[in-house]
């Protein structure tokens, strides 16, 4: 396939220090710990994982909303991670973000007009007169009436605010949008409206999405490829369909099996993981997942697994595939499905 890489993340790390007082060493939290992936132009790439796995931090670090500790983020050929302040600022018109909480992400003191004008003004797009025209058009595209221009965010419902948030991101016609849990704060019946809007916009403007979510059914529906994160690391990457049909990593398998059924008659084999996600401040040795893994072996406790490539860009980072023969491999994957 002639897929053009729009974004390449190479060995990205984001560590936080938590101060423990005068005499103790800071605790280092490895929120994002050495991850690499590539997002192709025009696709929707998903980051999935549970709370604390580092998926949101990854999104923010890519956009330099927090500074990376180490690694490269190559967007359209430029390394975002080392850009100067002003260059970064102007690059932002090509990479935008949609936030989870539509209540918190819009300045309560600004009108919708001011909120949508700001991106155009900052990047000096269009002449002053054309800007209002542009804002009205954008509102129409996201399904809001231009009568709303002088309203404040608190006068809108959650779904409408998320439309405004999306309009604000798309109005600059960026190439790339990081969408951080864009529908998880919304009611079920509104969720589908916003998903549809995002699908429509992608088609219309040829957008590339980095879609961050914990909701596997939404991910299965609207993304092209998925990276599964656990404790700051990517454990598996695959085409969405492949991932849901043939998950390799035991964590992915458990995650998919944990999704509630969609019809009462459905009979689903569950892998119930034991215990909780360990703290990223004190991750387990070896493979971080070994404390909860139903297939954990001795080697998993001692050594970090390497990433293995299966067919079609499907990769998984697990010792099961580095130590076992082909036959055993088949056994593991088909048995656990």
């Amino acid at each position: 396939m002639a897929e053009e890489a729009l974004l390449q993340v190479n060995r990205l790390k984001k560590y936080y220090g938590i101060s423990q007082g005068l005499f103790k060493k800071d605790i280092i939290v490895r929120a994002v710990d050495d991850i690499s992936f590539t997002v192709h132009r025009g696709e929707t790439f998903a980051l999935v994982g549970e709370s604390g796995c580092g998926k949101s931090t990854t999104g923010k670090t890519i956009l330099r909303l927090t500074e990376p500790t180490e690694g490269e983020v190559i967007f359209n050929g430029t390394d975002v991670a080392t850009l100067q302040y002003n260059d970064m600022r102007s690059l932002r018109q090509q990479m935008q973000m949609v936030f989870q909480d539509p209540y918190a992400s819009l300045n309560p003191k600004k009108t919708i007009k001011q909120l949508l004008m700001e991106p155009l003004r900052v990047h000096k797009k269009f002449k002053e007169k054309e800007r209002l025209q542009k804002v009205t058009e954008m509102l129409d595209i996201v399904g809001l009436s231009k009568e709303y221009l002088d309203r404040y965010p608190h006068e809108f419902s959650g779904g409408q605010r998320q439309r405004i948030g999306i309009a604000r991101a798309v109005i600059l016609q960026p190439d790339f949008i990081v969408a951080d849990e864009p529908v998880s704060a919304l009611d079920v019946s509104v969720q589908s409206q916003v998903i549809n809007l995002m699908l429509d916009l992608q088609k219309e403007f040829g957008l590339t999405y980095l879609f961050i979510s914990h909701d596997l059914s939404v991910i299965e529906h609207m993304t092209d490829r998925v990276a599964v994160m656990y404790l700051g690391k990517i454990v598996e990457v695959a085409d969405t369909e492949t991932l849901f049909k043939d998950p390799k990593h035991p964590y992915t398998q458990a995650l998919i099996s944990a999704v509630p059924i969609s019809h009462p008659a459905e009979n689903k084999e569950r892998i119930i993981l034991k215990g909780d996600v360990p703290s990223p401040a004190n991750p387990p040795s070896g493979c971080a997942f070994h404390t909860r893994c139903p297939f954990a072996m001795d080697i998993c406790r001692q050594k970090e697994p390497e990433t293995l490539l299966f067919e079609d860009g499907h990769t998984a980072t697990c010792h099961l595939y580095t130590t076992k023969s082909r036959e055993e491999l088949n056994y593991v994957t088909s048995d656990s499905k």
Partner: protein
Amino acid sequence: MLDFVIKRFLQVIVVVFLALTVVFFLIRLAGDPTTLFLPPDAPREQIEEYRELLGYNRPLYVQYGDFMYNAIQGDFGESLRSQEDALGIVLDRLPATFQLAITSLILALFIAIPLGVLSAYKRNTVFDRIGVGLTVVGQAVPSFWLGLILIFLFAAQLQLLPSGGGGTPVHMILPTLTLAAYSVARFTRFTRSAMLDVLQKDYIRTAKASGVPTMRLIMRYALRNSLIPIITLVALDLGVLLGGAVITEAVFSWPGVGRLLWQSLMNRDFPIVLAGVFIIALIYAIINFVADILYAYVNPQIRVK
């Protein structure tokens, strides 16, 4: 915990050090102290002689270093009036101030906490409205005026209590009431709002859902949770209490540090002012320190890591 204690201790030292520095320089900037001892028409040589004698002719930083060096050893010089050791005079007055402040604090807490709890529990009833009204009015009454009114009523009109001075328990009644009154108003308000805040928390709903009776819910659960913010607020407010003590002492001629400080300011007796500032800063810093430890004690999220 040790970590925390050391950190706070260092902070106490910094506070006291800076307080002294600021006051020292303010005093020096405000004018040459020698003029205070001599008649305005004193000849130049006499002034120079005096300056030399008291060391005021040296550069300011030398004087400052000298002052700090002595201050660390507890030597703030002698009172310009009585020629006694300044710190000694201040320390002599300390017990009286403690007596007044601690009695008032205890009195205020004993009145304010039950009142605040009751007000929160009966919120929006007539009782609560009256309680809130009183606290609002109470906060608008300056303590010195309340003191004057109490003197007028109990000393001038009824002639029941002495209008000032110290020594006997009877002398304590009016100053204590005066000093406690303002704190009662504020502490009641704190308690009420802290209780209201806690009463709407999810865990109170959980306790209700387990069938805990209302009285137990308030006394054992909500009050215990409210203590955390109450302690913080009361500790922050002790500065107001201490400040109030200075004024109350002045009103009632209570022989404490506050009155001494006031008189020394009037007389421009700066060694005593410096020693007084030192003691007040130290006391307040220590109180805050104790409050922090108490806070950690009632809050397991800090105590148990």
